């Protein structure tokens, strides 16, 4: 009996020793349609801190191929097999939404890198465990509409991806546009793999809008703009923050000159005024990324993964006092810690979390940017 007790005690001791490291599970879309977002995120995860408050941090990175089912499978695997303390991911909204149920059931905090505000919808009790780092679509669409109204735009045409991204943008955009008396004269969709958008573009040109908003991500967003240019459309062009990488400039070339878009301040970090609180933290990330992966390769999407790391760095020290990593207490304390993050400057803005807002960004998390001479220029 006594011996059994000792063996048991030893076992407990060993398991706690073996699980003393903090385990972070990451699932992201490094392949599939969202690969252009997932790859810089994956690169950024390898730059995240390996020790926090003297405690070793292990990262387990899985690829979900931009597929919802795989993202859920990965999350279950990370929680049940790897016993992770926190899940980071996934890259895109559909995947993140599907993961919410899994992490809530296992009472494990999750930090999503996808844009939609629905992921952290405070009216859903399950989102108690869910946080996210990218700006909401609302942040970005208010910025666009503000800019449109200030430059005298009265009518606007919308063309977006025929998926959750385009649909989400249209809902946000049309809601605010209605309030601000901006008329949407055309609403078109195209898919990422389309080789031609002539039909949609002809319809837009025929509606004669003052401006066109293209809601696409990455290089596919260049296609409608090139087609509009070919049809000699002379109005203003707006893109979304989904295009903020250098490949878009490469593919768009002269055709995207003069385009306006809202973006995280990280995109133009060096041009920010010195008193901007985000400048320092954004530059820190940019420099670290470029040192590891080459100059000019940094993309704003990677910043969301970096910000997830910053949030952990801020929340873990207090949580360690309440429980050992690997235990339920630690996970709960970590969740509370994440919810209590205040005034933390990240690559994309300043986090001020609260129970009603698991993102915590304000107006400082976005700037308007114009493409001038093939470069991103801050609009003042």
């Amino acid at each position, binding site marked *: 009996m006594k011996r059994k007790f000792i063996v048991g005690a030893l076992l407990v001791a060993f398991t706690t020793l073996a699980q003393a490291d903090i385990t972070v599970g990451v699932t992201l879309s490094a392949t599939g349609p969202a690969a252009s977002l997932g790859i810089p995120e994956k690169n950024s995860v390898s730059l995240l801190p390996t020790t926090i408050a003297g405690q070793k941090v292990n990262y387990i990175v899985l690829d979900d191929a931009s597929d919802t089912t795989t993202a859920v499978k990965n999350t279950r695997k990370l929680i049940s097999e790897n016993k992770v303390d926190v899940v980071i991911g996934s890259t895109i909204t559909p995947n993140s939404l599907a993961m919410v149920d899994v992490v809530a059931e296992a009472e494990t905090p999750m930090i999503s890198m996808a844009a939609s505000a629905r992921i952290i919808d405070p009216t859903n009790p399950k989102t108690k465990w869910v946080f996210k780092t990218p700006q909401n679509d609302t942040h970005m669409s208010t910025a666009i509409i503000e800019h449109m109204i200030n430059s005298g735009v009265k009518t606007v045409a919308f063309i977006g991806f025929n998926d959750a991204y385009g649909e989400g943008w249209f809902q946000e955009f049309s809601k605010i546009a209605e309030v601000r008396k901006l008329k949407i004269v055309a609403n078109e969709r195209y898919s990422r793999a389309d080789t031609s958008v002539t*039909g949609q573009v002809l319809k837009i040109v025929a509606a004669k809008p003052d401006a066109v908003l293209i809601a696409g991500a990455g290089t596919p967003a260049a296609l409608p703009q090139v087609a509009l240019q070919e049809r000699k459309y002379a109005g203003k062009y707006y893109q979304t923050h989904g295009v903020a990488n250098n490949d878009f400039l490469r*593919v768009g070339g002269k055709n995207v000159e003069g385009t306006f878009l809202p973006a995280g301040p990280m995109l133009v970090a060096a041009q920010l005024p010195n008193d901007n609180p985000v400048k320092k933290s954004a530059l820190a990330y940019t420099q670290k990324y470029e040192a590891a992966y080459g100059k000019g390769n940094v993309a704003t999407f990677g910043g969301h993964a970096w910000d997830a790391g910053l949030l952990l760095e801020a929340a873990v020290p207090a949580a360690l006092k309440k429980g050992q990593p690997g235990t339920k207490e630690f996970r709960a304390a970590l969740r509370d810690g994440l919810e209590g993050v205040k005034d933390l400057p990240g690559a994309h803005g300043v986090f001020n979390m609260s129970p009603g807002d698991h993102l915590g960004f304000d107006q400082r998390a976005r700037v308007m940017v114009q493409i001038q001479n093939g470069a991103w220029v801050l609009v003042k």
Partner: protein
Amino acid sequence: MDLQIALLLGQDGITNGAIYALLSLALVLVFAVTRVIFIPQGEFVAFGALTLASFQAGKTPGTLWLLLGAGFVVAIVDLVVAWRRRKWRRVPAILGWNLVYPALMAGLILSIEPSKWPLLAQISLALALVVPLGPMMYRLAFQPLAEAPVLVLLIVSVAVHLVLVGLGLVFFGAEGSRAASFSDVSLDIGEFSITGQTLAVVLTSGVLIVVLYQFFGRSLYGKALRATAINRTGARLMGISTVMAGKLSFLLAAGIGALSGILIAPITTVYYDTGFLIGLKGFVGAIIGGLASYPVAAVGAVAVGLLESYSSFYASAFKEVIVFTLIIPMLLWRSLTTRHVEEES
């Protein structure tokens, strides 16, 4: 919709339809000769376009490494077979095509800068790099299974497609590329203008279809392919090598695919996975032709292009749905009108 919009949409539809027509011809060809439903067809489109774009961007395309690797594996497999059967006379040809040729290409591409070459030379180089992958793919994936049922061949075909898409992501990255336009000329007829690129696509497709027609009608190899398509066993008894027929059909399919890719590269942004959807629309055309008739497949593919173009104007959100729903009435019509021949197993 006024006349001008209708004409522009028609022009767009015919341009895309011409590409789908080429791909549907290749699909019919491969299926008739080898009974393989050639899903990786689209990857040749993407590889052709992206290889050309890499040359123009001054990068070494990843397809070069694929050619070297595939050539190496084919050489080993073929050498083992030749050694077992003591057919030493084959060795020089095996080494020449699978090791020396890729090595020469590598030497050529690495020593010169293709970005400074004229467009035609870049296109030839891209074709020379991508097209040999077709017969190599046949040798590795399909030749050992040549007698397997259609379903097994289809499953292997899906597997090959997935492997190539994965390699495409590694080689070319997640973001797309565009190639420089062939010509900036545009023909103006009244208010209606036709771009040089559209003309290039339609003319090339037309010429290629005529060349293929002549090839099948007049040349010995073309007749051998047709004979294999009509009756495999009979063709073999007449001394036509089915392996040769298989490799030749894959060579043609790869050539058509890569050329289609090169044709669309200046019109649109091509991604590592763009080819699949384009190939699928060619497949709808091929289905309309019952995977047997070349002219019906070509007409069907152009119809797909036109349908796609007009539906993108009227209901852009449902474009893909409309295009792919077309397959259902077509299958119904075909299964009601054609007599079903039991496949011999």
